């Protein structure tokens, strides 16, 4: 593995500023790693030529002592972000050949700050999945393997390309999106850090929509500092997104290292779910001890409606997706399968263009919104959602952050859960409530499972209090001192 790609985002930034390395060198090193790492199937599109052009431009700026906060730093972009003139598919067949004539606000923010694009990262089709197995471009492979096994594992999802690429050092950091856990769960499965900011913190403009009231962009990175740096660039109000919030973006990096002395950390008792593996429970307890040792005050809190979060999510998200995906109709972009009339064309195009999981969710969403069922399902779910949000609000009256596991298990094998949608959905049991309430959450690698796979702890913060969240995450990271890395078997 190249020495250059071992640098974290923060270290590479500092080395570039000091002209110890150049953006062209760094980008070249990543492109080489990417070429050697195709077995992981992380990238669906590589923009090598564009990457080198951007790197050259960065070097020119750096040479003049200019340049933004991310100048010359090579990033991977989840294929859900529209990138101008660069193929954008959401890893769906239905967006075949789609080259957006516009750039998403979040990626535009990154380019504004000087970052370099390496390519587009694989993900679950339309971000619907928890294992990256629903992608039209095939599953992403987790760089981590169980001790003594060469069975291929999932990298989590939907941002599996992002998590795997960061873990395998095929990019310095990656953009990702999180609707029910799609940043945090893959981060936990790959030993990386993933933060889903408060709903409204990052603009959704130009990100292929899955469920509008839940989708948020965020980064997946090697450590908490890198996450803070990335988020500072990605976040911000956007007048093109009515749901983005007009508040100044703090310098998140500056919030790190302030310690957690006196911080009140809540432990939601309902998160001790039945059948939780002992090692997850043990990891959680260790996390509690770390924070206590760092001076935080630990309090048990109650989030009584926790068990209803997943069923609520699996009504709300499919309902919104059934409507958001109506625009993929073979008329203005993407795939078209000809038919004998317009309806036949629609039906054939959408049957061929959407994969099984997307079709299932669109049908589910159509059903729960249909006449006679709206009140029983959708309206009911949105009311329960209110109760879930209230639970968090009540808890945050007493504590500053919550600590929970990120996922109920370590990474599982490819193909292990694809036959049973429900068991797949249960992966998101700890992450989904956070999206329903619109809160910020972060996953930090905190240890290894008995068979040597990374496990993550999740911290949940108050709305727009990413600073406290990152501060606590940094403390967990320091205490966990997670140094393990996967062996680069994929290069063989």
């Amino acid at each position, binding site marked *: 593995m190249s020495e250059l790609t071992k640098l974290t985002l923060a270290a590479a930034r500092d080395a570039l500023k000091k002209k110890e390395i150049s953006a062209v060198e760094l980008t070249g090193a990543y492109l080489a790693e990417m070429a050697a790492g195709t077995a992981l199937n992380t990238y669906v599109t590589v923009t090598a030529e564009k990457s080198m052009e951007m790197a050259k431009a960065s070097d020119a700026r750096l040479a003049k002592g200019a340049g933004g906060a991310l100048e010359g730093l090579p990033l991977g972009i989840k294929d859900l972000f*529209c990138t101008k003139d660069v193929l*954008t598919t*959401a890893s769906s067949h239905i*967006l075949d050949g*789609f080259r*957006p*004539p*516009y750039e*998403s606000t979040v990626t535009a923010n990154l380019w504004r700050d000087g970052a370099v694009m390496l390519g587009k990262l694989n993900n679950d089709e339309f971000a619907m999945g928890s294992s990256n197995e629903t992608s039209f471009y095939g599953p992403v492979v987790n760089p981590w393997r169980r001790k003594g096994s060469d069975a291929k594992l999932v990298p989590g999802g939907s941002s599996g390309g992002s998590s795997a690429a960061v873990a395998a050092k095929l990019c310095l950091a990656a953009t990702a999106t999180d609707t029910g856990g799609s940043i945090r769960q893959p981060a936990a499965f790959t030993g990386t850090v993933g933060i889903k900011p408060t709903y409204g913190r990052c603009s*959704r*403009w*130009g*990100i*292929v*929509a899955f*469920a*509008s*009231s839940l989708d948020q962009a965020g980064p997946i990175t090697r450590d908490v500092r890198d996450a803070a740096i990335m988020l500072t660039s990605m976040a911000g109000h956007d*007048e*093109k*997104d*009515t*749901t983005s919030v007009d508040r100044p973006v703090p310098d998140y990096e500056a919030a790190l290292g302030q310690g957690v002395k006196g911080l009140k950390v809540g432990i939601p008792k309902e998160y001790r779910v039945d059948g939780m593996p002992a090692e997850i429970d043990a990891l959680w307890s260790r996390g509690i001890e770390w924070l206590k040792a760092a001076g935080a005050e630990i309090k048990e809190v109650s989030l009584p409606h926790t068990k209803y979060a997943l069923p609520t999510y699996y009504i709300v998200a499919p*309902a*919104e997706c*059934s*409507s958001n*995906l*109506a*625009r993929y*109709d073979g*008329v*203005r*972009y993407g795939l078209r399968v000809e038919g004998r009339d*317009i*309806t036949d064309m*629609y039906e054939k195009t959408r049957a061929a263009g959407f994969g099984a999981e997307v079709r299932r969710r669109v049908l589910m969403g*159509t059903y729960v*919104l*249909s*006449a006679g069922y*709206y009140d029983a399902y*959708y309206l009911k779910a949105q009311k329960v959602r209110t109760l879930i949000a209230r639970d968090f609000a009540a808890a945050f009256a007493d504590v500053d952050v919550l600590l929970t596991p990120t996922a109920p298990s370590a990474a599982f094998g490819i193909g292990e859960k694809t036959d049973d949608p429900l068991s797949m959905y249960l992966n998101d049991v700890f992450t989904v409530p956070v999206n329903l309430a619109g809160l910020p959450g972060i996953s930090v690698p905190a240890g290894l499972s008995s068979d040597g796979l990374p496990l993550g702890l999740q911290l949940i913060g108050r709305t727009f209090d990413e600073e406290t969240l990152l501060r606590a995450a940094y403390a967990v990271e320091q205490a966990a001192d997670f140094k393990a890395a996967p062996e680069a078997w994929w290069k063989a």
Partner: protein
Amino acid sequence: MMTDFESTMRKREPREEDLIRGATGDWEIILGLEVHAQVTSEAKLFSASSTKFGAEQNTQVSFVDAAMPGMLPVINRYCVEQAVRTGLGLKAQINLRSVFDRKNYFYPDLPQGYQISQFKHPIVGEGEVVLDMPDARTVIVGIERLHLEQDAGKSLHDQHPAMSFVDLNRSGVALMEIVSKPDMRSAEEARAYVTKLRTILRYLGTCDGNMEEGSLRADVNVSVRKVGAPLGTRCEIKNVNSIRFIGQAIEYEARRQIDILEDGGKIDQETRLFDPKTGETRPMRSKEEAHDYRYFPDPDLLPLVLQQADVDAIRRALPELPDEKKARLISAYGLSAYDATVLVSDGARADFFEAVAKGRDAKLAANWVTGDFFAALNREGHAIEQSPVTAKQLGELLDLISDGTISGRIAKQIFDSMYKTGRDPSKIVEDEGLRQVTDFGAIEAAIDAVIAANPDKVEQTKVKPQLAGWFVGQVMKSTSGKANPQVVNEILARKLGLSSDG
């Protein structure tokens, strides 16, 4: 959209002249209208694309309007204000909190696969429109609601034998859907309703009311029932785009329904189209399938919350509306209800009248404006804005009559000349020597000449004083109509030995 009205509709006694005679008895027509009025705005409801009419295909389409992936709607404040203004103009309740919903269905000119509309919580609630019918009746039509929604694009079906061509220029343009209660009972009332609504919208400046360009379209809900029976099943005739067609469509549709019912059939609740070429309605094929729009609140948009102070500010800035203007014209100028109704039907006409009438004899002004002036406009097919005669010029003409410079007869001649040439009346009077003669000597001489030439008539007049009129005519003729008729009368009476008060 269809609403259940039975409970909210106004009770009305059926009028003989509105009933349709059928083989089995008299039928009453029940009519409710949903008018789609395009909001007058520069940009679309949720995007910054231009709303100008007649642009080349797909040249006024933003990425939002084309529903590209990841695009988001941002609402146009002015369109919201226009809806509030319209609501206030309809004396309706303004809802400070309203919600945008998605109405989901597939159609090539609906790029998102849903229309953003307002379903459960519209921005405007109940109001009313007062119709002034030609027979001096007034009919009050209840407004059920007004909501904001996006227009769809346009599909062209005649460009290719097997394909349709889609233009999204209209896609996303702001519409106000104004839903009436089923308070109308004849095609005439429906026409009067759309006419009045259009007048109100134009006064408010919230919709230009241009039906040819599709700025105003009506969906007409028609049902029939035997007098006193419960409401019948209704059919909705979609997108009727002229007031005349609205009348034709209703008359055809009512007859069609009556024929079916009298033959023992039943009416299917369905959506129909009016074909202006045949004057008939037919079922809409694309709507055959039972629709299930799966409305739900648009998660890309937050609830629309208005401040009472902003609503009050809009209310304070409302222009005078037709009903108030009519009342004022009657009270301030002593106009007849009929003249006032004619004048307020078009704000520009009422403004013209007021400019003419200001500081002058109002009755004279009304006679001229609604008489010769409107007749000329109609004859030439001119809108008032195109009139070659300005209010100032017509006012001057009236001044010339009032101060005796010209006679009423000459005034008509001058007016025709003004309309043809656009010249000032005073200039025409000077150039053509049309000044009225009030010079006693000149008139006396003309009278003497007529008397001298007709001694027999002078004799007859002594027994038949009404023959004096003949003399007046002769004198006017010999003076080319310029003699002041009052002076002629006075002198003639004296000369003919008739008793005169003058």
